[in-house]
């Protein structure tokens, strides 16, 4: 962020600080410019049982309509394969993540302490602390912004879906027939553009809250400084003697869920649901793997070797040169 826009951001944030953004009125939003996050209280969310489509999902779709893909009429298959990822005829789908649906609600019934508990869990990008989707993008088309959200640059994205493969939840969704690759060699290279939640970046830059947060009739989603959100989640967690998700997963995220039942159990149910789907391999239906690691952990663990290797090389060379010169070579 440039100096100008940061100052701008701060100014607006201070103004917005006075506005109640979430269920917890005391949480002023990022008044000092620190990154923002969200806290989903799953004891409050009921999945909008009475509505055909949950309020947060509808709000998200309305808010982001303009950002949804507008693919070409004729879309080439991904040579040499006979496939293409085209969701343009499934725009109305609200039961999974697609390029046209950036949040959806999963509902499971879980046996816990002799009781059957129904849990509804709105899902979307977790906006991770060290997002492998962004870090590992070979073209630098994805970024963690200073404000917290992880954004995909749709001008640069070629749709290789590496971000989806390295995301523990497979969040980004691909639409073929749009983006940079269409201008190069659409048949042979590239596959589209990846789409996902951007935490309503424009709104939060101008001091607002994401559309889903404002739309929730139960005030189940809180929005504010990530640190404050984590504290709120932890407090709620101890109060209900529950379970927390998103604080450790993928090396830490800025999205925290608190549930009355263990996320291991939720994950089992989600995997069951997924396996019963028409195409169980289809992306866009994330599980809740508990304490799932970050794909970069192993590589980062070897970094010391990258420091030691050149030192060892220099040392070995010094020794070898000394020996040969002494030997009169």
């Amino acid at each position, binding site marked *: 962020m440039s100096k100008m826009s940061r100052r701008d951001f701060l100014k607006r944030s201070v103004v917005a600080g006075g506005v109640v953004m979430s269920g917890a009125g005391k949480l002023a939003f990022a008044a000092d410019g620190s990154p923002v996050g969200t806290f989903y209280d799953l004891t409050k969310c009921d999945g909008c049982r009475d509505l055909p489509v949950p309020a947060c999902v509808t709000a998200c779709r309305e808010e982001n309509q303009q950002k949804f893909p507008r693919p070409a009429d004729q879309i080439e298959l*991904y040579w*040499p394969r006979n496939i293409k990822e085209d969701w343009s005829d499934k725009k109305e789908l609200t039961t999974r993540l697609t390029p046209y649906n950036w949040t959806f609600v999963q509902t499971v019934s879980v046996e816990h302490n002799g009781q059957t508990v129904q849990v509804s869990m709105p899902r979307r990008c977790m906006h991770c602390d060290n997002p492998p989707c962004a870090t*590992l993008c070979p073209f*630098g088309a994805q970024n963690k912004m200073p404000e917290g959200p992880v954004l995909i640059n749709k001008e640069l994205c070629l749709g290789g879906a590496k971000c989806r493969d390295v995301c523990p939840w497979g969040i980004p969704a691909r639409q073929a027939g749009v983006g940079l690759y269409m201008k190069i060699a659409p048949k042979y290279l590239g596959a589209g553009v990846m789409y996902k939640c951007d935490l309503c970046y424009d709104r939060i830059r101008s001091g607002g809250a994401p559309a889903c947060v404002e739309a929730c009739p139960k005030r189940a989603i809180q929005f504010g400084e990530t640190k404050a959100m984590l504290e709120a989640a932890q407090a709620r967690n101890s109060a209900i003697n529950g379970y927390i998700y998103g604080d450790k997963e993928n090396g830490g995220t800025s999205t925290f869920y608190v549930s009355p039942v263990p996320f291991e159990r939720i994950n089992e149910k989600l995997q069951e649901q997924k396996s019963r789907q028409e195409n169980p391999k289809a992306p866009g239906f994330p599980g809740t793997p508990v304490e799932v690691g970050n794909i970069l952990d192993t590589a980062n663990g070897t970094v010391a*070797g*990258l420091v030691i*290797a050149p030192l060892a*090389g220099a040392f070995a060379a*010094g020794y070898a040169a000394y020996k040969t010169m002494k030997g009169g070579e």
Partner: protein
Amino acid sequence: MAQKILPDENKVQRHGFRGRFTHWTVALSTLALIVSGFGQMPMYKRYYIADLPGLGWTADYSTTLIVHYLAAMVLLFAVTFHLVFHVIRKDYDLIPKRGDFRTSYLIIKAMVTEQEAPPSGKYLAEQRLAYAFLAFSFLIVGLTGLLKVLKNLPSVNFSAQAMVWISDLHTLSAFLLVFGIVAHLAAFLFRENRPLLPAMFTGKVNLNYVKHRHRLWYARLSGKGSAVSLQEAPAQVPEENIRVS
């Protein structure tokens, strides 16, 4: 090192064990880096390369990333060894000299027209140029690579612009490197260059070849060269004027 004429074998010792070890360590680690580096782009799966027997791992980003890091360590070791060793010994035979572009042209012309080439030192002018080109590519790909390693650490986050620059420079310089390697290998399409090949394996080259094509080097090794003839042919000087005594 240990360059010397081996009259009994009718050969010249061109590279010692260290030189060959460094060359092949750089070559193999670079090959691993190229294969695993291309694996960072979603291509091995799409184009069925991962379906070839034994290549399933190429489609797995976590595997190719680790291979990339490990190979980078090996390369860093070999490159620092090479640089420090040659700097300490003040051995700059591979650094391009003035007029190398023109001399390369003359050498290549001589190969094509099957005429006498201008006399060379241990390395041909185009070998020095190729070295410089590869060194430059390695420098850029290495520096941007190290920045990418930094960026992968949890505590480091670069700006969106920096990410695009670093990523694209890394990719671009990797392509330069691949191009350089292809050109390096293409040199052996010329029959005249092939006698150099065994030197990379056994360390030795044919004595007659050296006498004929690396006259300046031969003069230096045999101690017969005068001060003047030890200078490599400046490109401006017509080759007829150069005679190794």
